[in-house]
């Protein structure tokens, strides 16, 4: 949608610089990320693609502050997230959508409770919010996801299809109007017909908040093509290629990316 040049001019929202990370100890120690750098601008959708074992989920967790890198720095809005203030700001102005909605939604919580929780967590720090207002904001988020609140507010995940549950999970991630949305393989566990609804839901969020940055982790190039502005290809813990989505997909340079593109045109 938005031209890549316009995106590059926008302020940087999240950046990871030269990130290294190893797991294990002693002789079994092995490095998973060998100095990865990544940048998400305001309003930009960056897709990280790579097969299993490429290190993309580790990179994601580090960017979210759920894991600390061995070296390198992650900055959100210019503030290193290693500092308590930076981490707090990241937590409070970002939303995450995970792969499996049935795992990332508490099975014993209604959609109202799950989606309302981020609002409730922020309320504690600022001011009071009455139940009516909470319910109204949760309803707005559900409506943006093309889910009818009167039908879904009091539903439990067990009574939802995969696509519906994932849209509730997205509603939860965006209900506070985050500046950064992270989607970690958010479509790979959902069946193909429902994936379109998820894509539409993401598009609706981006239309509502044009300045929101988005980081999409995926192995599905079809999905990536229809939503991402920029692509970062990760292979064996190294960024082997990055650039605008059109450039990377139409004219892949790295051999690994070529293989991916060839395989995806099944």
């Amino acid at each position, binding site marked *: 949608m938005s031209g890549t040049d316009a995106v590059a001019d926008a302020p940087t929202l999240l950046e990871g610089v030269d990130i290294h990370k190893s797991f294990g100890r002693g002789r079994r120690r092995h490095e998973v990320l060998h100095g990865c750098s990544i940048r998400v601008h305001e309003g930009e959708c960056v897709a990280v693609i790579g097969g299993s074992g490429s290190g993309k989920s580790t990179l994601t967790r580090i960017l979210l502050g*759920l894991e600390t890198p061995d070296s390198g720095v992650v900055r959100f809005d210019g503030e290193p997230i290693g500092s308590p203030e930076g981490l707090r700001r990241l937590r409070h102005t970002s939303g995450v959508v995970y792969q499996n909605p049935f*795992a990332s939604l*508490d099975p014993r919580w209604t959609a109202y409770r799950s989606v309302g*929780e981020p609002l409730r967590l922020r309320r504690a720090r600022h001011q009071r919010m009455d139940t009516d207002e*909470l319910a109204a904001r949760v309803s707005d988020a559900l409506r943006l996801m093309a889910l009818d609140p009167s039908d879904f*507010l009091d539903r439990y995940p067990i*009574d939802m299809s995969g696509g519906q549950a994932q849209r509730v999970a997205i509603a939860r991630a965006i209900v506070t109007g985050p500046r950064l949305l992270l989607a970690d393989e958010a479509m790979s566990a959902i069946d193909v017909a429902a994936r379109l609804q998820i894509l539409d839901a993401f598009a609706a969020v981006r239309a509502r908040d044009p300045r929101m940055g988005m980081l999409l982790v995926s192995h599905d190039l079809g999905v990536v093509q229809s939503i991402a502005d920029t692509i970062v290809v990760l292979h064996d813990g190294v960024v082997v290629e990055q650039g605008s989505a059109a450039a990377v997909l139409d004219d892949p340079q790295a051999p690994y990316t070529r293989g991916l593109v060839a395989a995806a045109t099944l």
Partner: protein
Amino acid sequence: MNRPDRRRVPEAPARIAAEHGPRGRLRRAGVVVASMWAHGAGRFALVTLGLWILVSLVSLFWTPRSLWETNGYAVWAKPSADHWLGTDGVGADVFSWLMAGSRTDLVIVALTVLVALAIGLLLVAAMTSRAAALAHGSVVLIDALISIPTVLIALMLAVPLGASVAVIVLACGFGYGLNLARVARPSAMLAARSMYVESARADGASAMRVFATHIVPNVMPTLVVQCSLSAGTAVLAEAGLTYLGVGVPSGVPSWGHSLSTSVRFINIYPLTVLWPGLLVTVVVVALNLFGDALREAADPLTNPRLRGDDGHRRR
């Protein structure tokens, strides 16, 4: 993909807001009881426990005979219009003593479960803590402490406390609390390591909040069943410890007291042992069934009626 919602209400947010207030809670409690009532076992448990509480309350003001009214000419009497379940070795009315005993046992069971639940939840919190030392330490601690028999703890507590209700409550509460934590560990760990907990943490929820709102509700089904088993065992333990002389002090009515005073004469007057024995058995069975029924009825995952659509909502 969805069926049209037959109960569609235009003011959805307002309805939801009401549902999360006290009236909603009351309505859901009603649904839980109704769901338990729908099954024979649940109905039996509700009726038995309801009667237990009722009889305990009544016994505070009225028993058919005074507890201290003894009749030297009518010891070991058979059931009659005067003494519904006969009399014991000093000619006291067995029915009245059992009635009065029910309130002691009710208090013991309630307090034991509370103590066990408190200890159990504390240990579950420790085990699911993100501090590795605390998490591992608490598991070792439980395994070490659980090997001490409840009776031994009771005997040791009886040294400073003497024979008292407190000995039973503390000894049983401690032992059952350890057991509760150990049984709840798998489901607690499952919840603690789940993506929904990670997602709550990513949203900035505190450890306390995660524990109270995610982990506890998700181990509740396990805890409910285990608590009801503990409650049943507490009734049995009361009888056992009272018989050993470290439980309810003599002169205080309890089912264990009724049993221990007559058990020596079981060969001569079996009926006086039969009544308290039967009562304890029925109550223990009812407590166990109560736990199963409550777990089934109070968990939205197993009871569709709690999910607000009488089970007709399908994806």
